[in-house]
């Protein structure tokens, strides 16, 4: 229970890729903030909303499949739920894949914390012919379920009264179905004899069968069609190279006009004004040149690359939220294995081309400490746009005729040194084989641009 009686602390929990962050952005609006969990490199997204005299504080937990964590962000989510004991859990589920999502719902229900469920992506579920009997779901589980669509905002505001009701009534999940005499549920009584996890899986499946109806004929999923190309052993690699080429080309071409404008503004305008002002007050020439050329010019040179960094971040976030980046570990694992690495290493290394800091943070999804440390040691050699500033400076100064080639060579050298570092560390310190890999491939989705903007 909160110290302040008019505050409700809500933990947003669910499987990865269920739209938790999009819902938080919809609910919290301008109060949406991105920080870090204390002491770790995992992003913490929070926000609050005032509703009927109550302050509802929302914390977006990292996605997890089970409360038995393997990765750093899964541990953070589990620890928050067990140690912080939020007032209400908002369990965000992906309605088109509700059966799998309910596995976690059952585990969350066992915590004895009042709970509300957001049946997110209802539009997608309806296209697949899936409907959920929310009344029966409540009767069987004691969990109020609200159909939502995070992208359009439909149903999102209805979550607030449900959260408040759950808190005020201390509406804890009951999982009543295990006592139901319905023949369909009778089998679940036997589940009580099984181990805890088998029991939970049985309850989740029983709940799914009781509340979900699905039409037989369904349209082919867009994702399945796209995967036949993008995950093809040959076509997929061609597509990947094309996407990477486009990534860099769009980043540089789109940001170039902005960079030129910034350069002109800082050096041609701000620098000139500073020089003129200093001369008018009688400053020595050394001071005038130091301020206008070294300080303003030098800082300005670095600032001109901000548009490039912003565009690269934006495109990387788009790739991530579209669902494509989640497929890269599958596509490139066989190449990474030759380097003694897990396919999951691709994503942090790719992010390193945008910025090394989020790249290191991205290693939190790697279960193996060995693989994680190897990738963290490689990331500093992946050249980010900030390094491009230095490369450009030296290349232009010392190799004016072949500047572009020299810059490309420096990028390539960084990648080579990164690979060499990995191989050297594996021979010297980390001699074991790369770890096993298990990932979910989410469906392809159009990213929610406002959420992308806030994250960038």
């Amino acid at each position, binding site marked *: 229970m909160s110290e302040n009686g008019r505050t409700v602390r809500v933990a947003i929990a669910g499987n990865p890729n269920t739209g938790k962050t999009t819902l938080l952005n919809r609910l919290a609006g301008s109060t949406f903030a991105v920080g870090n969990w204390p002491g770790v490199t995992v992003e913490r997204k929070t926000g609050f909303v005032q509703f009927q005299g109550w302050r509802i504080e929302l914390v977006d937990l990292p996605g997890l499949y089970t409360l038995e964590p393997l990765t750093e962000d899964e541990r953070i989510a589990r620890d928050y739920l067990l140690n912080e004991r939020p007032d209400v859990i908002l369990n965000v589920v992906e309605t088109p894949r509700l*059966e*799998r999502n309910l596995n976690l719902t059952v585990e969350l229900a066992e915590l004895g914390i009042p709970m509300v469920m957001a049946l997110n992506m209802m539009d997608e579920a309806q296209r697949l012919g899936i409907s959920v009997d929310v009344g029966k779901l409540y009767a069987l589980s004691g969990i109020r379920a609200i159909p939502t669509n995070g992208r359009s905002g439909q149903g999102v505001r209805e979550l607030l009264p449900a959260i408040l009701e759950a808190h005020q009534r201390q509406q804890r999940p009951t999982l009543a179905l295990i006592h139901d005499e319905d023949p369909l549920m009778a089998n679940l009584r036997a589940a009580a004899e099984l181990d805890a996890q088998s029991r939970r899986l049985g309850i989740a499946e029983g709940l799914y069968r009781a509340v979900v109806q699905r039409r037989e004929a369904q349209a082919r999923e867009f994702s399945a069609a796209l995967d036949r190309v993008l995950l093809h052993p040959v076509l997929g690699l061609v597509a990947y190279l094309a996407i990477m080429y486009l990534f860099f080309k769009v980043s540089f071409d789109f940001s170039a006009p902005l960079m030129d404008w910034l350069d002109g503004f800082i050096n041609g305008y701000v620098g000139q004004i500073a020089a003129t002002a200093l001369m008018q007050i009688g400053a020595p020439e050394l001071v005038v040149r130091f301020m206008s050329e070294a300080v303003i010019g030098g800082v300005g040179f670095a600032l001109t690359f901000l548009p490039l960094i912003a565009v690269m971040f934006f495109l990387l976030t788009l790739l991530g939220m579209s669902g494509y980046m989640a*497929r890269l570990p599958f596509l490139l694992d066989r190449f990474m294995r030759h380097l003694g690495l897990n396919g999951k290493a691709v994503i942090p290394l790719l992010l390193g081309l945008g910025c090394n800091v989020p790249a290191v943070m991205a290693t939190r999804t790697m279960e193996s400490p060995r693989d994680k440390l190897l990738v963290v040691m490689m990331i500093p050699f992946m050249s980010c746009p900030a390094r491009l500033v230095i490369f450009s400076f030296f290349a232009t100064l010392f190799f004016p005729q072949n500047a572009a080639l020299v810059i490309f060579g420096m990028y390539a050298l960084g990648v080579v040194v990164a690979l060499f570092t990995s191989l050297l560390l594996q021979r010297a310190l980390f001699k074991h084989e790369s770890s096993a890999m298990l990932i*979910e491939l989410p469906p392809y989705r159009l990213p929610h641009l406002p959420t992308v903007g806030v994250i960038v």
Partner: protein
Amino acid sequence: MRLSDALQGQRIKIVKVREECALHAKVQAMGLHSAREATVLSRSGRMMLVEVGNVRLALSDEIAGYVEVHPQL
């Protein structure tokens, strides 16, 4: 047989996930648990792409080797 032995395009029914698997709980929580039917969509190196219901999972042979399955016709 083991899931790692399944062929591309083959439909299988999961019997159990052996407890020796280090990711035992996660594998089951992600949808690969007993009595579920699945389809092996493709294979790439040591990785296999499996569809269970509406969920697509990519897993390496090391994990698939711990999943016991029956082939379905």
